[in-house]
């Protein structure tokens, strides 16, 4: 495939640092060297199947733990994302307030400048909703009297911008004689969000730890490979190999280990998600079907493969560089 014409090699110059034919030929040789390292390292990986499979499995589990946790957080985040819009105030009216009075009260609130919208939920509506979504439908039927209060759902004006105003509004509602109980839905959303934040940070820490694990596991595997091939390394050094030349095949080994571990981790995560999907979707149905499970996206998969390969290459690089310092010919 290489059709580079050699310059007539009349000048058989003594070979030193800059030896090796013309530039294009050297470039081709360099490419061949990399291609050879790429495939021979793959070959060696295949030759020691048992060790390779063990290493890759351990790495895949570590990587899938990290990315699985990431996916879990992403899914929960999506769930809380839906809730974020529900920054409303629920007013639970006293039991003795009639439907007509409640409606009048709703009108009066609607006129307030800082209120955007008021929704009246009658006792019957509340009961119907409860029956549909709670799963206690038949139990409710057994009740003689509807125990649910009339609820006014108030959506305030620009509530996120001024918290103080929001608090004031809430306090005003609490003073109203007909209001039994005023609740801000924001509060638990906020709590959930801070919990999610914690989970995300925890996931990050976990990922860093597992990443360091990947680094060391690959490093150790490469150290063993280097040990098995030390005779070859010594001979290469004796005939003038640079450290970069010796390092190259090991870096490719590291690359393959990381890459295959990433691929295996993708399968592990995806299979786990598929197993979970059925039950999650059943749960989602109960919540209006607003939730759809997130899988690893194309970009996320690429990122996972990239990171796992990079970590493994780094692990190999550290180990080989360190060992080459120690390893002198003889």
């Amino acid at each position: 495939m290489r059709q580079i014409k050699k310059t007539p090699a009349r000048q058989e110059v003594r070979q030193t640092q800059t030896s090796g034919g013309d530039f294009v030929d050297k470039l081709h040789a360099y490419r061949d060297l990399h291609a050879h390292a790429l495939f021979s390292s793959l070959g060696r990986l295949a030759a020691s199947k048992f060790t390779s499979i063990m290493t890759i499995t351990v790495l895949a589990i570590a990587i899938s733990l990290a990315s699985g946790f990431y996916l879990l957080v992403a899914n929960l985040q999506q769930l809380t994302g839906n809730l974020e819009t529900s920054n409303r105030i629920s007013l639970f009216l006293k039991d003795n307030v009639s439907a007509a009075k409640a409606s009048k009260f709703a009108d009066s609130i609607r006129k307030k400048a800082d209120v955007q919208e008021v929704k009246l939920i009658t006792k019957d509506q509340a009961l119907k909703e409860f029956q549909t979504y709670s799963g206690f439908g038949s139990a409710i039927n057994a009740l003689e009297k509807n125990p649910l209060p009339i609820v006014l759902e108030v959506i305030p004006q620009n509530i996120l911008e001024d918290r103080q105003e929001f608090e004031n509004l809430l306090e005003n509602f609490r003073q109203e004689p007909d209001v039994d109980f005023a609740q801000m839905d924001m509060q638990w959303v906020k709590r959930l969000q801070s919990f999610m934040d914690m989970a995300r940070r925890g996931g990050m820490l976990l990922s860093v730890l597992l990443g360091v694990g990947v680094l060391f596991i690959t490093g150790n595997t490469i150290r063993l490979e280097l040990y098995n091939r030390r005779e070859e390394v010594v001979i290469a050094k004796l005939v003038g190999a640079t450290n970069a030349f010796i390092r190259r095949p090991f870096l490719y080994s590291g690359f393959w280990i990381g890459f295959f571990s990433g691929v295996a981790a993708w399968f592990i995560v995806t299979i786990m998600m598929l197993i979970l999907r059925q039950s999650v979707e059943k749960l989602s149905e109960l919540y209006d079907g607003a939730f759809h499970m997130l899988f690893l996206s194309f970009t996320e998969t690429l990122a996972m493969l990239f990171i796992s390969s990079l970590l493994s290459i780094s692990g190999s690089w550290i180990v080989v560089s360190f060992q080459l310092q120690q390893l002198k010919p003889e």
Partner: protein
Amino acid sequence: MLKFENVSKYYPDAGDVLLNVSFYLKHGEMAFVTGHSGAGKSTLLKLIAIIERCSRGQIWLDGQNLNQAKERQIPFLRRKVGLIFQDYKLLQDRTVFDNIALPLVIAGYGHPEIARRVRASLDKVGLLGKEKKYPPSLSGGEQQRVGIARAVVNKPPMILADEPTGNLDPELSAEIMLLFEQFQQVGVTVLIASHDILLVTKMNRRVLKLDHGQLVAS
């Protein structure tokens, strides 16, 4: 080509293995290093290949002071020296071709050039046609020829051989020596460490005699 100036090598557990060794090898000269075992022959060769560094003194190889060579320059300096070992140091799981090609692959030659040079090198040592064989299937003499082919394939200005005939019978040894003479005739500087006095005398070349680390005759 090679200059030793008051070179000493000290090992903490063995003391002075080389002491105040000075000599000079001209371009294209062929010489032997002799002495009893432990006299410092191998150490002397190791210093030239920068496998070890000297404790005192100066060594010049091809105009370069080896004491000043930085770690990253060592590979390139080693490419100026073809090394030949008593135990051949061949890769058992690679073909003869691949073994000989190694220095060229390391130096970054393209494949057509590598193939051409390996064949030329095999031709010189009389092993043409054996490039697809593996070292274990070759005789000792043939393996040493592969080792020599590998040492000269990159056309180094100097060849260093450490007991190259140590594992061979006299007849094969003589053949190997003949090969070294041929290289010397085309301008390569050759330095051979050997304790085989008979063989060395027969060659009738310059002899550097070491005794307990000191150069007693050159």
